[in-house]
């Protein structure tokens, strides 16, 4: 009897072990089920490269190029801000900061990652957006630039903690060797430690980008949500994620608009899949 019970439990464990694969496939299947049909009416190339997103006009125009460019622009801005600051902070925490402050800094970065996106979006709306408007004399502060700054903050915890791990995993002897040859601490860091940790740092950057592309609430609240192709960082944009979040509530289930939003979901799923697989390859390169 006990044998029987145990074999049931073990089977259950194996089934649950496979749960992650099951859910990933399930997500993809349901996105495809609802989203693929849009390509029959709109055509894959027209969907991706179409310049007009007027989903409720008659006939609907479903081109997501403005949304893709919006996402890329915001992501680009966020990466330019967050990568240098994040990596510098990671080096500071891992190498320079005295051990007592180190724990405090790590806790603060963790605190940042715990703040819900919608709270950051709210704070961005009431503080950052008016500042941007006044400083740059813009008609509105709801711009790609505001989104980039806010998203940079959301990517920072990921970048800092993973880059920090990468720096810790560099063997101590590397640094000691450099110091023994007369290098200063800084020379040891940027000539030896950083190159040795480079694949881990690259993975940190990739995961940061993944975080930024998938972020929804904060971007929806502060980028202005205009589905037109932007010509500068100081214009409102609409991202892929914000489009789904803002429009799905108002669509009729089974309409072309509904299918198109799922097709955007497929695009996002594929992007995040590629980013995560690449980051994973970088992370495992070292070991």
């Amino acid at each position, binding site marked *: 009897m006990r044998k029987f019970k*145990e074999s049931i*439990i*073990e089977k259950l*464990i194996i*089934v*649950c*072990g496979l*749960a*992650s*694969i099951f*859910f*990933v496939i399930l*997500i993809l299947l*349901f*996105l495809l089920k*609802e989203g693929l049909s849009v390509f029959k009416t709109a055509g894959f190339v027209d969907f991706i490269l179409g310049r007009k997103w007027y989903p409720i006009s008659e006939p609907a125009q479903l081109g997501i190029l403005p949304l893709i460019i919006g996402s890329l622009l915001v992501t680009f801005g966020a990466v330019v801000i967050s990568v240098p*600051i994040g990596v*510098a*902070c990671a080096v*500071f925490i891992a190498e*320079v*900061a005295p051990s007592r402050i180190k724990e405090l*800094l790590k806790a*603060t*970065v963790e605190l*940042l990652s715990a*703040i*819900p*996106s*919608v*709270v950051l979006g*709210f*704070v961005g*709306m*009431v*503080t950052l957006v008016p500042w941007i408007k006044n400083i740059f004399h813009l008609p509105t502060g709801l711009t790609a630039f505001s989104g980039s700054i806010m998203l940079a903050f959301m990517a*920072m915890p990921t970048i800092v903690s993973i880059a920090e791990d990468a720096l810790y995993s560099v063997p101590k002897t590397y640094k000691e060797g450099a110091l023994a040859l007369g*290098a*200063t601490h*800084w020379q040891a860091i940027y000539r030896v430690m950083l190159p040795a940790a480079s694949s881990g740092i690259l993975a940190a950057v990739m*995961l940061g980008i*993944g975080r930024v*592309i*998938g972020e*929804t*609430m904060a971007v929806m*609240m502060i980028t202005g949500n205009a589905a037109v192709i932007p010509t500068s960082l100081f214009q409102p944009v609409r991202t892929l*994620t914000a489009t*789904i*979040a803002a429009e*799905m*509530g108002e669509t009729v289930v089974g309409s072309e608009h509904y299918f198109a*939003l*799922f097709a955007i*979901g497929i695009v*996002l*799923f594929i992007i*995040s*899949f590629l980013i995560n697989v690449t980051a*994973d390859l970088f992370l495992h390169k070292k070991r």
Partner: protein
Amino acid sequence: MKHNPKRSQNIAFFFMLLATFLIVLPVGLIVFAIIKKGIPAISWEFLTEMPRQGMRAGGIFPAIIGTFYLVSGAILFALPIGLLSAIYLSEYAKDNLLTRIIKLAIVNLAGVPSVVYGLFGLALFVIFLKFGASILSGSLTLGIMILPIIITSSREALESVPYSFREASWSLGASKWQTIRYVVLPNAIPGILTGTILGLGRAAGETAPILFTVAAFYLPRLPKSIFDQAMALPYHLYVISTQVPNVDEKIRYGTALVLLSLVLFMNLIAIVIRYHFRKKKKW
């Protein structure tokens, strides 16, 4: 001027310090501002009353309760699956292709954008399984979203139990499952708990996955069953800061403060547990 390594080191370290301040300072300011402007709004009435006048007055009680239901449902679903999955990975899985694929699936599950979880929940639970926009649909969606957090942290906790503990148990004649159940699991509980609470905090703060699966715009009553729609704190904050005009700033900051406190409190508990048990560790 001759290159001076000592001086470039000072410059480099100064910029690193500056970068660190650029992260730490805004975090401090954000938390401080929310606490300072949110505290005046907090009162017993604000926490326990229904919203009134289209959310421009009254309290946020149904949003608090809704969040509580959603988060509990998510954990009820995700913890058993996540824990068993972690046991599989740490105790049963061999180093082969299948294990590699499972790990990759976990990484991807963790990376799927939260709004895509919302779409998935809408397609599977709300429409296909006909649960409708309900606490059940929202909880299941959130549960799948926090699954990778629970698997990863539980697995780390299980793997940190020394191998010699298992060997000792086997040598006494215990079976593999008995060893896991009576030796490995009890020693891994603090780590599992930490991960679970972090997952709870994450689920409590997410908005995008509940947008189309459960969240009610304005529902000044409590949900009656798991097939009811519910209000939730993060969605409520979104609604009163973007969708409803002329909401008193105090109410917005108050809601933000309650949500932030809830999430930070859970993180704090997780940190305390981790710290406490690390000190007590016997190996």
